[in-house]
């Protein structure tokens, strides 16, 4: 498949998205709701680019995380229009999360000082990574969205403790803005009393052993440390790779690391 990106001609093999193609070409496109292990979602829109299909006259603004690469596609990732759109999107995000330090850092990178409109002091940017990890990878489906429009929220059903939560911490791991945190005291409580004496590795099907030597104080857990050293990621993702090796390998390919000449 031949395509042109920012004026440079390239070829690619296999199915991939424009975002993956751009990354394989060493072009950085900002994105917040994208994760190699998850289905593309298209919520943050920061990854917008301009494309022109073969035989078409006009350029279109599309989300590169969802747009499939096609034969003869022309891509512009840094046109004036795109940079304007991204800057305003970041400004909208900053208006929503005016106090969040991750969002503020992002805004600074895009040259946004102060939003020209109000919004709120949220921490959550609604990228949906936590919800998708919880359902798609961990399989617990403990948290989800509620309501719609500007009132949309990430929460457990009815806002009460969910019995489905296994306190694996994958949601806090993927959250790009630090909006979700673990209550460690309560995790210990949960492990000791409610979840039949199991730690997150047993609950995720990673370890058979049910008894913890450390009295469920995960902070001191050796497995945790060794996991981090070995995989450099959260156990949920590490396990995802082990359980569905083929699927995970496919993902790597989809990110373009292997798929592009």
């Amino acid at each position, binding site marked *: 498949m031949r395509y042109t990106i920012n004026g440079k001609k390239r070829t690619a093999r296999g199915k991939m998205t424009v975002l993956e193609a751009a990354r394989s070409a060493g072009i950085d496109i900002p994105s917040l709701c994208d994760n190699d292990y998850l289905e593309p979602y298209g919520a943050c*829109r920061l990854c917008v680019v301009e494309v022109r299909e073969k035989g078409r006259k006009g350029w279109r603004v599309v*989300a590169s995380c969802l747009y*499939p690469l096609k034969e003869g596609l022309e891509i512009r990732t840094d046109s004036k*229009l795109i940079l*304007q*759109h991204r800057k305003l999107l970041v400004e*909208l995000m900053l208006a*929503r999360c005016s106090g969040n330090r991750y969002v503020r850092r992002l805004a600074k990178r895009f040259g946004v000082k102060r939003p020209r409109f*109000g919004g709120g002091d949220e921490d959550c940017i609604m990228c949906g990574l936590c919800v998708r990890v919880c359902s798609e990878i961990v399989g617990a489906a403990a948290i989800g969205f509620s309501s719609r429009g500007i009132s*949309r929220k990430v929460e457990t059903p009815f806002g009460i403790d969910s019995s489905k939560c296994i306190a694996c911490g994958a949601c806090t791991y993927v959250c790009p803005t630090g909006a979700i945190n673990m209550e460690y005291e309560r995790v210990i409580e949960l492990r000791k009393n409610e979840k039949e004496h199991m730690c997150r590795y047993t609950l995720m099907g990673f370890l058979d052993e049910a008894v913890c030597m450390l009295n469920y104080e995960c902070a001191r857990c050796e497995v945790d440390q060794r996991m981090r050293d070995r995989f450099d990621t959260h156990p949920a993702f590490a396990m995802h790779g082990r359980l569905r090796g083929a699927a995970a390998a496919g993902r790597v390919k989809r990110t373009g690391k292997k798929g592009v000449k």
Partner: protein
Amino acid sequence: MKRLLYRDPVTKKRIVHEQELPFLRKQQRVVFGDNTRIRPDDITDYIAIGGYQALRIVLEDWTPVKVINAIIRSGLRGRGGGGFPTGIKWRSARKAKQKEKYVICNADEGDPGAFMDRSICEGNPHRIIEGMIIGAYAVGAEKGYIYVRKEYPLAVETLSTAISQARDCGFLGGNILGSGMMFDITISRGAGAFICGESTALMASLEGRVGEPRAKYIHTVEKGLYDRPTVLNNVETWANVPHIISKGVEWFTSMGTGDVKSDPWGGSMGTKVFSLVGNVNNTGLVEVPMGMTLREIIFDIGGGIPNGRKFKAVQTGGPSGGCLPESMLDLPVDFDRLTEAGSMMGSGGMIVMDENTCMVDMARYFIDFLKDESCGKCLPCREGLRAILEVLTRITEGEGKRGDIKLLEEISRTVADTSLCALGGSAPNPVLSTIRYFRDEYVAHIRDKSCPGGTCRALVHYRVIPEACTGCTACAKVCPVDCISGEKRAVHAIDETRCVKCGACYSVCRFNAIER
């Protein structure tokens, strides 16, 4: 008897025959004209006026390709708002490799003040069903859905009755009219979400998921409901199909604008039903050939503006359409002209506004509606509409700043370009079109702190005109905050510091003694 007859406001003549009514004279009621001739709950009525004849013709003599070609040549374009050529859609679905395919009828009519789909569902359900069966035959689908808005219980009932009658008569089911074709229809009720009128959100809802759209970079004719090829058309589109088959392509293309012989995008053929509401004398559903001008629709059919007021704008295309000013009244109404003018056909809502309407407030109203109906999945639509609403609100409250118009345009462009679905993509239309045609009203609000339409409460002041006040105390009685003082038969006064500007005194005064 004679005095009961309608009198033409211009010629002052009594009108004897229905067809001579100016309201009806210019209309061409192809799609819903039969509503008055049949009982919707009796299939024999529909059959008696030639119903299901088109289906019989198709099943007996036509190949699916012939049907598709006829629809392409007719130039029929999607009546739900997009204006995509129906035949092209069907052809893509026919070509799609997967065996299992679906057809869907979108009856989730969400635009406030629009009820053309409702009238067809409730008045002539078999027309829709016949259209769907023909469509299913053309694309090779065995299952169909009708997605009806929850606010239309009668439509659900009528359609259910119609479907079971059609089954009994052998038009639906395992072996339709002995041709071996299999097709059946299920009705699904919406649950109150405007966004479910968007095709991918509607399909998500049919699958039992939340009505959130997905990107349409892969079209629904390839991957739609349950990832299968799916043809989704609006009620009015389906209802046009039987006529095109039975009366012929030439008949259909005799109405409309442009030329679709070589290019299905080249024109707009047939008729369109509009829901004419707002500040207009004859409100209701009107069906006219494509290409009639706005002036003919609003003044000749609609009978002009009531109470001797002046026309200010007409909003076409529902909440995310655009507002067109007087200078655009001679615009022929078709898909492409409306889009060029910064509005859209939409599903056919047409809201007329008189001189007492504030265009900034109208834009604010529509954005407020869309903000509530946004699903909230993608950032520009969720946050962008809130930001636009905030700016518009401060303008209507007299707090507008210099540069606000530019800011509105900037946010609008980003929301339109980067949103995930058509709701966000078209949501800024009311803002952009009012800025384009009524910029002076924005300027008046921001610079002069005045509202030309007289509806923005923060910028309106109520005052008693001493010369006209008779001291009847009517206004003092209705004031909800008791801020009107004055003895009986003495001139009254409004305490502006406590006035909540509800307008109750203004509407109750019989002596025009209160000005605003």
